[in-house]
């Protein structure tokens, strides 16, 4: 099968310490993939390189047939690679609705001037807010959101570009069981209904097994093994 994302020989060092050492793997279109590894194994560095926040020292990244190794994070988002952060950095002065509207505008989703309608007939911002369970809090400043709502907002922001690939960095950490279940359902729906592939970074093996078809294990900066679920 043709790869949606392929990473080859990704290497990264910080102050002489090699954090990633020739990481090579691929993700097929619509494939749910998990990334597991102990603390300090290089998971977040790999996510940062894949999303364009950090450049690799060596190696190449191809997405949808295009070489994107040096493409910045905003350009990758517009191509269809969206990421969430382990620690959300919300816009303190913006409301939830505005935060999603910014991502919708930047992501280039179909929307006529004046905030018209998306393919489903609803304005895409409102649709996303409803889908992520944030509609009732759309006028609340992001700075006042709870941890669970911030994660939902991260999801809404990531889904705003109709991503082909979602990179989720510890998105389920520090959540209540109910919030975790709702976000897992949201992720499953995006994968099932829109064919969105995802790379889910987590410390929680049962969760990875329930959501992913394949789990990559990162140890000391290398893909040590790969397990099909």
């Amino acid at each position: 099968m043709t790869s949606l994302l392929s990473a080859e020989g990704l290497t990264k060092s910080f102050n002489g310490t090699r954090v990633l050492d020739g990481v090579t793997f691929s993700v097929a279109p619509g494939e749910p993939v998990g990334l597991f590894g102990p603390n300090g194994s290089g998971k977040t560095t790999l996510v940062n390189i894949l999303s364009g926040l950090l450049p690799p020292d060596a190696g190449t990244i191809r997405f949808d047939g295009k070489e994107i190794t040096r493409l910045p994070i905003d350009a990758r988002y517009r191509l269809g690679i969206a990421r969430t952060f382990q620690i959300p950095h919300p816009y303190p002065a913006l409301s939830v609705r505005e935060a999603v509207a910014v991502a919708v505008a930047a992501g280039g989703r179909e929307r006529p001037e004046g905030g018209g309608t998306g393919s489903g007939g609803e304005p895409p911002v409102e649709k996303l807010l409803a889908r992520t369970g944030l509609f009732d809090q759309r006028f609340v400043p992001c700075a006042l959101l709870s941890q669970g709502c911030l994660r939902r907002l991260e999801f809404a922001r990531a889904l705003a570009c109709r991503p082909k690939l979602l990179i989720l960095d510890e998105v389920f950490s520090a959540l209540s069981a109910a919030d975790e279940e709702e976000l897992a359902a949201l992720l499953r729906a995006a994968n099932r209904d829109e064919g969105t592939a995802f790379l889910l970074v987590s410390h929680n093996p049962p969760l990875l097994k329930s959501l992913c078809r394949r789990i990559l294990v990162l140890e000391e900066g290398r893909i040590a093994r790969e397990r099909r679920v």
Partner: protein
Amino acid sequence: MTPRWKGIPPGPWAAPFRGGWLAAGIGLLLLFPLSSPDAYLLDVFTTGFLLAAFAASWDVVGGVAGQITLGHALPFGVATYACALLTTLAGWPLPLACLAAVLLASAAGTGVGAVSAPLSGPFVALLTLSLAEIAHEAAAGNAFLSGPGGYAWGGEGGIPVALPWSDAPPFATYYAALCFLCLASYGMLRFSRSGAGLILRAVAGSPITAQASGIPIARFKRMAFTVGSAFAGAAGAGFAAHVGRATAADLSIELSFQAATFAAVGGRGTIVGPVVAALVLHVLFQGLSLPPAARVLLYAATLLVTLRFFPGGVAGTVRDAAARIRRRNGGRPARHAGGARREEGKR
């Protein structure tokens, strides 16, 4: 593909402005000359209007976009010098020179924005401060032009502006400056509440999230500098036309600090707050005919008190207090009530 920010649905920042107080204030200012004030007081107000527009232009860059510039006098001074040089040396008519001055100031802002775009926080402040100081020193230390009659232009004495009038009546300049302030403030307010303004607020709030949401933040930072500098240039051109001379003080660090102080006191990112703060503080401190050193001390004291007790400035403090009261009463935060009202109106 680039962000289609023009189509962002209007959000809380685009809420209909409660203009009753503003309209009352403008009305009072319109009537003020009828109370037969002396020419000095009218001049203080006229300068205050131009400084208020300049403070609001700082707010576009430093408040809305969060790029704390300490060199905002640069586009202001570029415009005053452009006006002086183009009218006196090149013989351009004043309106054309003013237009060119605004364009040049805007171009200077684009340049500053391009250089500072990769930087953040204190580094932006240091870079902008350095650039403005280089221009200030160059203007202050060099009497490099030779005017008609063989005397030197430039240096601390500055360069005269060739004005089409010999002695404009104070009422005319007062009303012209007030009109300019209203138009410029309206333009900046519209910009700050547009889709681009919303994206700039996002960039100011969390650059990393903005980038991860597909925003090319360097481009938007440049845009903030370009737009803010254009308005600063317009204020500078108006100032040059008012005082009839471009001097090195137009590029001074004091002017940049003054704009930042007005914005901090009035409420960063609100546009109207800095305008009101600039008018009140300038008229109060200048109207008391205090010596310059005392005025600087008063500005510094005002800034310290504001930063210590009202970090959101006057507008921010009032807005937050209103939001707290509404929340206590079970309503939505005041800042977001406009968005909610529009939403309900659509249904």
